């Protein structure tokens, strides 16, 4: 009886994951396509699917990290610091996230002019996230 119940729970969980994965994939594909276009490149279907799957796995991993970080700090809610912490191995990435974070903080009162500026900057420095 109990086993049956937990099995049912798992199936339900999988169905939900599948649904979210599909929705996630739509976003991922449109981002990847836009990025390829900006590089004046075509991108083949399997590559996009693969990248979407990778990104989904990455998000799941991120969720685990955020939970652990938040709990370690004695909180039950993850905040921006936790997200930045999850990228701490890559300094460039962490810096970029921090500036995005400051933009978000500064965004509430005023408009999104800053954010656009930050995005433009990102465009001009294409691949700045390598660990040197």
């Amino acid at each position, binding site marked *: 009886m109990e086993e049956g119940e937990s099995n049912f729970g798992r199936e339900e969980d999988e169905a939900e994951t599948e649904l979210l994965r599909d929705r996630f994939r739509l976003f991922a594909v449109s981002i*990847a396509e836009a990025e390829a276009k900006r590089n004046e490149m075509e991108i083949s279907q399997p590559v996009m699917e693969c990248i979407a799957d990778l990104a989904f796995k990455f998000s799941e991993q991120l969720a685990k990290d955020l939970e652990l970080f938040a709990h370690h700090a004695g909180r039950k809610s993850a905040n921006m610091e936790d997200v930045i912490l999850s990228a701490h191995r890559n300094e460039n990435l962490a810096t970029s996230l921090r500036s995005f974070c400051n933009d978000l903080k500064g965004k509430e009162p005023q408009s999104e002019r800053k954010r656009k500026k930050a995005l433009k900057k990102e465009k001009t420095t294409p691949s700045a996230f390598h660990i040197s």
Partner: protein
Amino acid sequence: MENTFDPDLMHAIFKLVWKRRSLEREKKEGTDNLEGELGAGPSKKSRPTTANANALKLSCELVRVFITEAVQRAATIAEAEGVNKIEPTHLERILPQLLLDF
């Protein structure tokens, strides 16, 4: 406007992972201390994790950067090979370093 993920979608994914993990944890604890405080305090530790709105937006940005980096690096390889379509082999080439960087 740049396209990015929907923070609500990200939240749904996070919640699903957290729910899965809390279920696993409960199962483990259930076998660990069967005699212990049975009715006492399961709710304290298994209170679900949440995330605030800005953290979700920042997570969306992080995942977006992950995807754009993958495409850009693969595009660089494709360009070096003189083709204008990104194929799986190009992705294969950049994958190890990409996964190390994120």
